[in-house]
């Protein structure tokens, strides 16, 4: 095993150790905030997987995040003790009651035209399963359409961007079913096997930490398989890969779907932690922000993109809460992005990789592992 590889594994182990040790250092409110950042870290991994490894810049990752979030939020809404019409055996979400036509039956099946869609969500497991299945199915269908047609590059970005805005519009427009702009608030807690996931508890934090760790390790393993290598080959030269006999679109769809699945899980975790789901998840700005995290962290580095997401959000929180900088924080974040793109085009991951190589060279001046070797920066 090469020294570089040992350092890479050490970096993963260290990162996972740190996030599992974090509860020692702060109170519940801080933990709740960090949980959100871990969820953002998952989104960073999802973006790096498609952008860095598959060369597909998805500007609508918020679609999969939002769908995952809404699916679980619907289930949690129905298990909320405070926001339902109580006293009946089939409680109805509060916003449906407020907007119900006079005389409408106060039943989930038929209080309005679309309310029957909520019926399956009375079981939390339906929300949990759909939170990953729906993003995966939609990503699969979209991928089949787009990649079979050999659409690539900026056109994929434009299509995903348009799609997330379209779905956002539908979610806002379907007010009777989705509560429109207001989103779903006042949610109950997720309960799995008797454990209640209070958003301000360590249990919830560890849930996020476990999910992020599994995502990181899983994504890293999958890009190290042959399929991962072929995917990178496709990113470098689709035509060449096709003439070697690979059905390029299947590989693209496969990894696009995995990325969507990760985003769906991230959306569900966010709902558990933040206790709301809103159409803002499908705002264009949010999807673009994810791409910025991955760019700063290093798009060709899964761990880098993950750390980038967490770091930017920590800085953002710090800066936006400092009184002198309240007005300027957006400019500061923007400046960081511009500087990174100008001076570290491969992001933090690339920087770490370069520093490591310098270090190794100084360690063993005999072995000239020239800078030409293995510059993929796959930390």
């Amino acid at each position, binding site marked *: 095993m090469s020294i570089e590889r040992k350092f890479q594994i050490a970096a993963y182990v260290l990162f996972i150790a740190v996030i599992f040790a974090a509860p020692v250092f702060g109170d519940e409110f801080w933990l709740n905030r960090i949980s959100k950042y871990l969820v953002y870290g998952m989104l960073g991994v999802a973006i790096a997987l498609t952008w860095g490894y598959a060369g597909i810049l998805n500007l609508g990752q918020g679609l999969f995040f939002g769908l995952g979030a809404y699916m679980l939020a619907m289930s949690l809404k129905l298990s909320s003790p405070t926001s339902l019409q109580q006293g009946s055996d089939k409680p109805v979400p509060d916003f449906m009651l407020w907007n119900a036509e006079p005389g409408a039956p106060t039943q989930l099946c038929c209080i309005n035209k679309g309310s029957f869609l909520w019926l399956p969500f009375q079981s939390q497991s339906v929300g949990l399963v759909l939170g990953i299945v729906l993003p995966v199915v939609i990503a699969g269908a979209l991928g089949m359409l787009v990649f079979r047609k050999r659409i690539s590059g900026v056109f994929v970005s434009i299509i995903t961007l348009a799609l997330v805005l379209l779905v956002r519009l539908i979610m806002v427009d379907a007010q009777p079913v989705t509560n429109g702009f207001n989103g779903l608030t006042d949610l109950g807690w997720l309960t799995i096997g008797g454990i209640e996931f209070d958003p301000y508890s360590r249990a919830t934090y560890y849930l996020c930490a476990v999910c992020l760790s599994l995502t990181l390790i899983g994504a890293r393993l*999958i890009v*190290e*398989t*042959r*399929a991962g*290598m*072929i995917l*990178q*080959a496709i*990113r*470098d*030269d689709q*035509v*060449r*890969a*096709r*003439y*070697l*006999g*690979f*059905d*390029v679109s*299947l*590989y693209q769809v*496969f990894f696009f779907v995995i990325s969507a699945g990760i985003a769906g899980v991230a959306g569900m975790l966010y709902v558990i932690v933040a206790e709301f789901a809103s159409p803002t998840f499908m705002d264009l700005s949010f999807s673009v922000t994810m791409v910025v995290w991955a760019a700063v962290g290093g798009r060709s580095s899964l761990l880098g993109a993950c750390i980038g997401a967490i770091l930017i959000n920590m800085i953002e929180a710090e800066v936006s809460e400092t009184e002198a900088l309240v007005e300027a924080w957006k400019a500061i974040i923007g400046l960081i992005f511009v500087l990174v793109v100008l001076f570290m085009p491969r992001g933090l991951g690339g920087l770490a990789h370069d520093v490591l190589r310098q270090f190794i060279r100084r360690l063993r001046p005999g072995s000239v592992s020239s800078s*030409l*070797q*293995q*510059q*993929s920066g796959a930390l």
Partner: protein
Amino acid sequence: MSAIALTIDGLSVDFGGFRAVNNVSITVFDGELRVLLGANGAGKTTLMDLVSGKTHSTQGKVFVYDTEITNWPEHRIARAGIGRKFQVPSVFRDLTVRQNLEVANCRNPSVLANLRFGFSRAEARRVDDVLALIGLEAEHNMMAAYLSHGQTQWLELGMLIVQDPKVVLLDEPTAGMTQAETRKTAEIINNLKGRHTILVVEHDMGFVREIAERITVLHLGEVLAEGSVEDIERNPKVREAYLGTKGIS
């Protein structure tokens, strides 16, 4: 002679009224090395595009042995046994030389079959052999982006060899090469003779003499002549259409 490896039967393509390839019929025998000669615009590369599936033909048929592959999708044609090297060398720039060959070495093209790690000893040995054949052993761990032009061409040839197609299409494998590089390329290609059926597009007559058995001359999208190197060099129609009055220098 032995079986026919590649049959091109009355192949034509029409680009909005312009017939880039017009009713071309060529049969290449198993293990043969055939050179396609022709001036710019004669339709050589277009013919390769038609055979390999990049361009859809409007008329005619293509067979690999007994399988008709006319207008199949490219990856299926590749799986049917046709490998292609492009005029502009195309390799996976951000993978190492070794990884480039390993990608070509994945026999099963499906995603799920490739969800596993590493390569067997036999597969690794095969990659080692090809690295030796194309003379890139020292560079095996280098990113393909940093190879010289000639080395990139050899790497692409190496990928073809690993892929082990029945029929190899080579589009100007010596374009932009120095003389020494051209000689080494000829060596690699001569090494493939017999094991693969090879169709080469080439301009460089010195190189053609070094490798060719039979030559097919294309002119304005049609087959003008076919024969051995001497036949072609003496053929008056070829001299007039392609080589000019001065003959082959």
